[in-house]
């Protein structure tokens, strides 16, 4: 396994307390993993990895007219809201990110048993960018009476081969969390598809009651 050092300054969605990844931190390793906090370059490291939530990596590094990029990369381990984290790591790079840093990060995560995909520093990375509009559409269809939640979920499972239905999944993951993620992407893209559906807005408001 490739060594890594973890610096944690808050809670982590990717590696919650007790995750075995946390226990394997090695001081001074060539890859530095920052959980729950920010931080800059560290030229002595092959890569510095900053855990992201809904924000872009540029929030941590600054952006320079498309010339941003160094050995500082972003990452997030995908999880559906409150569900346990999956095995997927979305590795985020900027236009001028070091290819060596990308490869070092990929090798480190893969050697720890994760599946790694690389994506640009864009709102929602890969999965949230693609699924949030689908959740909003399904929630809107439910309000419009297109079909019942059960019929839509069954269609997803039996017709599309999904392991669970969209309504079932977004509800299980927490509609208020969906509101947070979808709102963040909407703020950055301005695209109406990311405007949280009414049911997500209701869930978010009820959270603060």
């Amino acid at each position, binding site marked *: 396994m490739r060594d890594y050092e973890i610096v944690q300054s808050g809670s982590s969605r990717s590696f919650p307390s007790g995750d075995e990844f946390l226990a394997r931190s090695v001081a001074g390793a060539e890859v530095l993993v920052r959980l729950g906090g920010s931080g800059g370059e560290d030229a002595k490291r092959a890569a510095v990895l900053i855990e992201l939530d809904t924000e872009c990596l540029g929030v941590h590094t600054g952006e320079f007219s498309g010339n941003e990029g160094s050995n500082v990369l972003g990452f997030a381990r*995908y999880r559906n809201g409150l569900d346990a984290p*999956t*095995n*997927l790591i*979305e590795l985020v790079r900027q236009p001028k990110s070091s290819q060596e840093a990308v490869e070092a990060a990929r090798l480190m995560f893969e050697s720890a048993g994760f*599946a790694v*995909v*690389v*994506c*640009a520093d*864009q709102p929602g*990375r*890969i*999965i949230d*960018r*693609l*699924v949030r*509009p*689908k959740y909003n*559409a*399904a929630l809107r*269809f439910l309000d*419009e*009476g*297109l*079909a*019942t939640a059960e*019929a*839509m979920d*069954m*269609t*997803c499972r*039996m*017709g*599309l*081969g*999904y*392991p*669970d239905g*969209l309504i079932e999944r977004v509800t299980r993951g927490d509609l208020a969390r969906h509101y947070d993620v979808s709102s963040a992407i909407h703020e950055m893209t301005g695209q*109406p*598809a990311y405007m949280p559906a009414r049911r997500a807005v209701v869930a978010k408001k009820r959270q603060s009651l």
Partner: protein
Amino acid sequence: MGAGIALVAARAGFETICHDVAREGLDRSYDQAATFFAKSVERGRMTEQEREEALDRLIPATGLGSLADADLVIEAVYEDLDVKRKLLRELNVICGERTIFASNTSTLSITEIASGCGREDRVVGMHFCLPAQLMKLIEMSRGINTSQEAFDAAWAWTLSAGQHPVETQDKPGFILNALLVPFNNDVIRAIEAGVASPADIDKAIKTGLGYKMGPCELLDLIGLDTQVRLCEAFYPVTLDPRASAPPLLRRMVAAGHLGRKSGRGFYDYTQAEG
């Protein structure tokens, strides 16, 4: 698609008249049915006697007149409103007054298909998923004039055929395509925007969401030209920007990159199959 639906009906014990204007098409469908049922026997899903009986229930016909006594006619003709409406008008003259007409349309309005056919109260939407002989789901919808009795009878038929019906409103794409077509377009736009490669998007979706197939793999399978046609059916009706064909999709189709059928789409199949 019609051949697969006929397999479902014949397998369930219904005498099934398979209509096609071309004899060659009927012969080809019969051969496919014979192959499919033979494999079902090999896999222990039906007995030899059941195979023979199911094949015997498939009755080929090149004239619409043979459908006169049918209880249910399921049309799976080309996805064109005028073609479907003309067919139903012809069937209305030929079939008994109790016959129910079902449309396997995936994009068109059942109300519009039924309009002017002469028995609007006995037309239902019955959208099978591909391949029909393997997929149990059927999206059932009623037009504005569909009677409860006709809808209930069609629903009961799907259950007796061993299928799993779900009810949807008569809206473009029903449930399945209303969710899938814009999603696939979002994927193409993400690729065009340089968010990630097709391979990484597929890997993320399969690993993170547990889908059996990545969206780029699926698009290559259904055909990028088919995706364009679906967009052209949806967008004018819904005016949903997500349903409009992305520029990259149109460029790929123009370049002949249609997916598996042309050997190249988001992936290159020429090496693997060579």
